[in-house]
């Protein structure tokens, strides 16, 4: 297990699925926090009562509610469940929520001298500090916090690794400064700035940043079976689960989906369209075009660098193309995209093509809840397996490779002048501005918000 927070999140999901199937979810929900943290048992925080409170909020998010909107603290989870059961569609609202009861209010980031300091004679810390914030008091070095500009030079030069940096993991991870502590000292997301990359979600060691799950909505749809429900599996699924992809598809089918399709088939269309668009734009004199399949990146441009938007390809994402393929065949189908991504939930909210988004974690939890093993399934017969280049979209550089291969079909000697941004961070906006300035000779830029591509998405099971 990568960590305890992940374990708890997944265990709760599995319990929820099992209780749903037993028809006892409504009765059980409010008991779960107590069952998991009984009196006289161990606690992970200060006491079992704090743990229980956090568990309640986790369950609330699993039912699809945001903690920020809680009006009545005494409201039972059972009553949230009733409301969730009535939900016809997912509200157009942010898909992340912060559990302030779970947030530890990490102390502000600063540099500190530890007892490793030997008070050496060379004292590189004092000499290298650009603002003279480090001085010797007695035999140890001391950092004047009022002067410190947090450049980290002292930490780099200390031969004894005596200087450490404490940090606020969510703030550090956010590429756009959208998460900050509020007046109560708890993390709060500014949803005007947030690009839904999920980096804070993955970074928080207290797992205080949660997703508003759609697991209950999908379980309800699968139970009601009012119309055909189709699972669309993202290209990053190929390395996520035990067994083969064909076995995974059979397993998913057993959950009650009427059909299962590879989103990579949509990626084939994205490639073809993007290659044409590239040719047209270059012919029209545009210097640069960037990929558009990563929603978090597209959000980043729209919210933080609108002038750059003209360089972003207008080609729809593989998810949209895949959903279009589904709807072409059965116009009333309920489409469920399953991937490793939080931002895709946002993308889906703003298109009629995709009804629900599940993460690999949630898919795994439903399979686990129903005790469906993937390894022991028969292989599903893919009527039209997607090509390797399309399946490779989930890896960094995958899109460029596919687009280049497409362009080379007509012009075998075609050269793409491509660059990659492999994982967005605090420097990305500056990099993008540099690319826009035209000082770097590049005409095709691939941007993936997650390091390594979608395979390392915030909700993927196997992180490399």
């Amino acid at each position, binding site marked *: 297990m990568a960590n305890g927070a992940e374990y708890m999140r997944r265990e709760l999901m*599995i319990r929820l699925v099992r209780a749903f199937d037993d028809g006892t979810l409504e009765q059980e929900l409010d008991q779960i926090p107590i069952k998991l943290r009984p009196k006289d048992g161990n606690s992970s925080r200060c006491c079992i009562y704090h743990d229980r409170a956090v568990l309640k909020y986790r369950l609330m998010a699993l039912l699809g509610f945001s903690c920020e909107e809680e009006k009545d603290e005494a409201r039972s989870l059972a009553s949230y469940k009733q409301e969730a059961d009535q939900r016809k569609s997912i509200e157009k609202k942010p898909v992340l929520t912060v559990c302030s009861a779970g947030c530890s209010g990490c102390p502000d980031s600063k540099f500190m001298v530890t007892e490793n300091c030997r008070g050496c004679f060379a004292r590189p810390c004092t000499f290298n500090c650009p603002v003279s914030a480090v001085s010797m008091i007695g035999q140890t070095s001391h950092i004047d916090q009022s002067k410190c500009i947090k450049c980290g030079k002292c930490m780099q030069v200390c031969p004894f690794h005596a200087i450490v940096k404490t940090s606020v993991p969510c703030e550090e991870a956010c590429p756009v400064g959208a998460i900050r502590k509020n007046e109560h000292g708890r993390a709060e997301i500014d949803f005007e700035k947030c690009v839904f990359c999920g980096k804070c979600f993955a970074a928080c060691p207290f797992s205080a940043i949660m997703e508003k799950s759609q697991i209950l909505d999908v379980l309800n749809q699968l139970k009601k079976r009012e119309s055909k429900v189709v699972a669309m599996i993202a290209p990053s699924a190929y390395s996520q689960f035990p067994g083969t992809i064909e076995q995974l598809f059979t397993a998913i089918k057993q959950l009650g989906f009427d059909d299962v399709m590879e989103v990579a088939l949509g990626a084939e269309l994205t490639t073809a369209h993007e290659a044409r668009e590239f040719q047209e734009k270059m012919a029209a004199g545009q210097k640069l075009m960037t990929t558009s399949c990563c929603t978090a990146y597209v959000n980043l441009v729209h919210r933080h660098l609108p002038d750059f938007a003209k360089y972003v390809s207008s080609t729809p994402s593989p998810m949209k193309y895949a959903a279009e393929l589904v709807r072409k065949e059965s116009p009333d189908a309920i489409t469920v995209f399953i991937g490793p991504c939080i931002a895709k939930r946002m993308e889906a909210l703003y298109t009629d093509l995709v009804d629900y988004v599940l993460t690999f974690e949630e898919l795994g939890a439903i399979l686990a809840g129903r*005790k469906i*093993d993937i*390894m022991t399934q028969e292989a599903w017969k893919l009527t039209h397996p997607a090509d390797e280049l399309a399946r490779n979209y989930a890896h960094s550089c995958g899109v460029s490779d596919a687009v280049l291969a497409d362009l080379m079909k007509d012009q075998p000697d075609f050269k793409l002048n491509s660059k990659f941004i492999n994982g967005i961070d605090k420097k990305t906006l500056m990099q993008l501005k540099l690319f826009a300035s035209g000082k770097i000779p590049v005409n095709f830029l691939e941007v993936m918000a997650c390091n390594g591509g979608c395979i390392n998405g915030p909700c993927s099971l*196997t992180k490399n």
Partner: protein
Amino acid sequence: MKKITLEICCGTTCYMLGTQKLLQIENIMPEEWKNCVAVSAIPCLNNCTSENICGAPFVRINGEIMSHASVESIFNRIRELLPGEGEE
């Protein structure tokens, strides 16, 4: 000597709750163990009932089920089973 069998449950529950990380165990095992331990991935051991779920991930070592399996606990058990070790 008969090899020690280490079976890693790859049922979906165990996989989600930790055995996925244990699949690497062969690579981190001490070299000298590699000839004495047979590692395999197996389907659900049927231990992941709602009562037991917090015991996941499960593995089976020489036929004996171990809950809360981690690299450390597995290594400790193997050490006990290896002849000449663990009985100082």
